């Protein structure tokens, strides 16, 4: 990935300070101050680049309180990629000051090691607070790493009984090679669809197993042969923190794990994972496997919209849909989830104003910048309230967790679900919780 100063300079030279990015930056719109908008962030970076300002300040906050949602790039005449710039800025910052040790440990030692990671999450979820959770809290890292912390924060209502990977045998998965328990396959009744390799993201595995389960069952119903990929973290979290090296390391490791597997498409129901998987070619420009994989990656809503699932007549239930940034803006997948809800789910869709504005979840932003995240969320929840819809649908675990929290905070009884969960339910596919 072009992480050099040339990229930064080229982007910055297109920023003519017109201020158009103030339109729909969710952070700016709640705090209304210059450091919190793309123009301010970019000018801060410019000052650093030109040596007018240095990185010796304790924290260059403008770089860190960006949601990386990409809304500003759409509004910007020059399409300045502020989110990309902020990743580079974070990278530069850590290069200068060193990455916090815990963060480095998580990105370089924990994420590439699923056994260790799972044990740790299990431990923390059992309520045994480790020293790590409070550090993670401070750094705002990876909410699913410390579910107890999320519970403490009220972000998560209840903890799942079992992680998704633990449940796979129960779902009827058989392991073709008994030597590798992490590679499991499920045959459809009638194999009419593509061979799918299902990518289970960390948040899905640890916090929303029922969502992944719904995805797998729907694919099967749609005629796909589903194999669960023996994957690790996709690399997005370290990348967002500017640890591009760790992201590359995870991607490479995943490519090794997936090597030799027989599949047509790599599919996930996590909009963030699917967006990042599609960027692997950029991340590892010298690895041809990355390009092939990126080309075969689909978000589940993208794929399901192409497959023939039986259509349901309107059940009269009203639903509104929130576009996850990584799915809608980044991948341009906006029509498909809506179409699925209406055609396949039989829902009545009420459009959400500002549907594509970030909900403030943004990975682990709600832990690193709780107050800002709350304010961004409040605007989203107000908009949802205005629709009056009975159900809130979206298509990314991070958004589900964040919006569910906002809904609970207002003591509403309104379900917040992944599109595919709603579809599975409408089609009578039972998913355990």
């Amino acid at each position: 990935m072009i992480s050099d100063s040339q990229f930064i300079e080229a982007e910055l030279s297109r920023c003519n300070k017109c201020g158009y990015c103030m339109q729909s930056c969710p952070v700016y719109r709640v705090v209304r101050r210059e450091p919190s908008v793309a123009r301010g962030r970019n000018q801060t970076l410019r000052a650093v680049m030109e040596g007018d300002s240095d990185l010796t300040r304790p924290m260059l906050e403008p770089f860190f309180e960006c949601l990386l949602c990409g809304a500003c790039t759409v509004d910007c005449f020059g399409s300045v990629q502020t989110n990309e710039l902020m990743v580079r800025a974070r990278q530069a910052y850590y290069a200068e000051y060193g990455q916090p040790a815990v963060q480095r440990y998580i990105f370089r030692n924990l994420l590439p090691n699923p056994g260790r990671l799972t044990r740790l999450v299990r431990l923390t979820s059992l309520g045994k607070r480790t020293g790590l959770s409070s550090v993670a809290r401070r750094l705002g890292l990876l909410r699913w790493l410390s579910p107890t912390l999320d519970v403490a924060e009220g972000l998560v209502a209840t903890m799942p009984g079992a992680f998704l990977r633990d449940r796979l045998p129960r779902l009827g998965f058989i392991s073709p090679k008994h030597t590798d328990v992490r590679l499991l396959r499920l045959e459809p009744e009638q194999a009419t669809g593509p061979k799918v390799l299902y990518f289970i993201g960390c948040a899905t595995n640890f916090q929303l197993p029922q969502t992944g389960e719904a995805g797998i069952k729907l694919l099967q119903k749609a005629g796909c042969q589903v194999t669960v990929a023996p994957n690790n973290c996709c690399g997005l979290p370290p990348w967002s923190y500017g640890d591009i090296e760790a992201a590359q390391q995870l991607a490479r490791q995943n490519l090794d794990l997936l090597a030799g597997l027989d599949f047509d498409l790599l599919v996930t129901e996590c909009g963030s994972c699917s967006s990042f998987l599609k960027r692997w070619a950029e991340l590892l420009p010298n690895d041809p496997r990355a390009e092939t994989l990126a080309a075969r990656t689909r978000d589940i809503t993208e794929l399901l919209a192409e497959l023939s699932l039986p259509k349901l007549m309107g059940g009269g239930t009203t639903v509104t849909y929130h576009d996850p940034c990584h799915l809608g803006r980044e991948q341009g997948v906006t029509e498909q989830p809506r179409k699925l809800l209406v055609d396949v789910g039989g829902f009545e869709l009420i459009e959400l104003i500002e549907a594509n504005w970030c909900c403030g979840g943004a990975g682990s932003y709600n832990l690193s910048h709780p107050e800002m995240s709350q304010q961004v969320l409040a605007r989203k929840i107000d908009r949802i309230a205005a629709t009056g819809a009975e159900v809130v649908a979206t298509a990314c675990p991070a958004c589900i967790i964040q919006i569910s929290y906002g809904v609970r905070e207002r003591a509403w009884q309104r379900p917040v679900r992944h599109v595919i969960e709603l579809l599975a339910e409408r089609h009578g596919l039972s998913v355990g919780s």
Partner: protein
Amino acid sequence: MTSALADQLREVIPAEGVLDDPVQLSLYGYDGTLYESTPQLVVLPETTEQVAAVARICHAAGVAVVPRGAATSLSGGPVPVRGGVVVAFTRMDRILQLDYENQRAVVQPGVINIDLQDALATPGYFYAPDPASQNVCTLGGNVGENAGGPHCLKYGVTANHVLGVEMVLPDGRCLRTGGKSLDWPGYDLTGIIVGGEGTLGLVTEITCRIMPMPETVVTMLAIFDSLGTASQAVSDIIAEGIIPATLEMMDNAMIRAVEESLQAGYPLDAAAVLLIELDGLPASMDRQVEQIKRACQRSDVRDFRVADDEQQRALLWKGRKGAFGAVVNIAPSKICTDISVPRTALPQVLAEVLAIGQKWGISIANVFHAGDGNLHPLVLYDPRDEDQARRVRAIDEEITRLAIAHGGVLTGEHGIGCGKRKYMPLMFGPAELRLMWQVKEAFDPDLLCNPDKVLPDRDEITESEPLLLPEGSFTQVAPQVAARNEQGWFEPVDEEAVQKMLALAHRERQPVVVRGAGTKLDPLADDVAVISTKCLNHILAYDYENLTITVEGGVTLPQIEEAVAYHGQMLALRPRFAQRATVGGILAAHESGPHRLVYGGPRDLVTRIKAALPGGEVVSFGSSCVKNVAGYAMEKLFIGSCGRLGAILEVTLRTLPRPEALRTVALSMEDPMVAAPLLAELFASPLRPAAIELLNPLAGETVGRVNRQWTLLVGLEGFTEDVEEMVERLGAMATEHGLGDWRELDRDYLALWSDVTNLAVQPAGTAILRASCQLSATTTLTAELNALDSAGALRASPGLGLVHCAVSGKLELRNYQSQAQILAEKYGGTTSWLALPPPGLATLPPPGTSREICRRLKHALDPHSILPDVL
């Protein structure tokens, strides 16, 4: 120092609303230009009280304050060039009131233009000024720069829609100007503050006009092979009597850039595309489109497209809206220059702009408001290349000078800011600049508010030539300067003679008044000399293609009508005594008739004023370009000043195509109150009658009503089909409200309305009191005023919130006014005398800061008070 100040400020503003971290400060040092300067501190206030407290603290510390909205300014307006405290208004973003009944919105200055539009859209209203930056810029910034936008061709700029402000003066005191109702006494401070570029004070609340959305919108695109023919088409469209809502043009460089990135469907080899949008009633649309098409065909249009639906409309606009971004393909960055020239000069100016670009080897693309001659050449360059940056600055200067050379102005809508201060002397002489400085000082004596903006440094202003006057007393010298008529009035023959008369009066401390036709015969004290503008009766220039006419102050309206009639135009000013009144007199008194409803008043129709001041100086403000924000809008100061500041020598006014159909319909009723629900419905509808008057039974006699009933009179102007449709829909509305049938009045339209305006049933010289109020209260106030004096004729303008009462002879005027004043105040208005104000009864601006500033202005312009002074 800084930290002590920060501590003080933190006592009056929540701590996190005071920024002093160097990184953050540097982010409040720029706008959309290349100017930059880091402030000492930044504050983010949330209430007027906080703003006032900040101003007080800074004033005491002698630190500058610089107001800032969204900092999208393209003139360096909010850049703190001398440091100081930036007052960022982004958190004062509450819409305080959406008052549909009275067609007003009250907002805090940090409200984003589009947020107001969005809030208004559901009930079907809009706020007209729509700068291209409206998705992000604030209304405070719009007020600061007097922003325009694509739709201001038809609807006017910010100044035409802002009716009042609350402003914290640089010393921390609060000033209120104008309000929801019209015509407040005193000088037009709102008019000066709008476009004041934040140099006069910190605006903390804005009252503006909102309107029902037009019913139909039709968008067209015309493609031309030369800029000349495209410009000709613009003139021809207007000559057809059509004023579209927008007339936007793009040149070839822009077309190519747009096509490359957006594929809006423009041919790459076209020299110009013209985007035309009409709005209004559906009835006349087809014919107007046909007429526009014919006008374009006469100019050899290559292709003419009309959008059939919303999707096509969006496609036609796509190129225009994306134009700014499209140029990124040519060069990473750009500066957006801004000049205004008479529309007829457009082809020539465009050619020269491109030549300038070629000379310096820099690409220039143009997208501009062709309808009003406002150009924004986009100068495209790479900011990383220092040499290119240098050439771009040179181009900016040459383009600015080019505008002046073609009779244009320094800036059409972006402001002078810090970038164009140095060019101000190109447009203004020393007398004008000195006067603007005096205005600045009246508001900001310590020069602490947004310093080093708009005006060039004082010591750069040269001295004016002293005026040579013979020695001697007024009585000795005056007759040598001007002859006297049989009434003893001095009648100077030309501008210079007026100038000398005033200078002489000033030197000799001789009280004088300036008189036009003498239609407003205030009683005079014996020692007052009268200067008549009777001889200043020449029409100086009539530029029918640009829809402007320049006349001397003593010219009468019939003279103008005669001149413009040949080109099928009119001056949409129909005040009282329109047959005799002089333009200077009308403006000084801010007289306007019922048709102000659709055409606006003198304030909206005047683009330039030249006046002689008591000091003997002659000053000229404004220009014949309709889009002009260079310097303070000083011309507004003279309008409504009642001759207390100077003698109006010359005026440039906007003319308009004469409407095709003129019809008057009338409805009778027992009680004025029964009209109220009908009127409310009418005002909320997209119908736009030209005039609406409610006449009491006596006033009704002017239009032949003798049955002791009240009359609701509606004047309709426009395309035949539209007028027809309005008549029909008015009929339906009246039936619905159980009010019976409208009667059409066949009498000559203008004569009829002139009688109504003059309250012609009254004997000449009757005292007339004008009461103002909020629109929705007009009928109530009318009924109550009528009860005060049922023997006088009364006409109310419910669409303007004004009531004119002729006071019958039986009443004691002072007593009458004080009762009327109580009533008007109850409904958010005030009263003033239009004719024969009893001595000492002229209405004053409210005591306090507003009156004080008016007094300072008076003192600046007329230090010895030789002209009438009521303050």
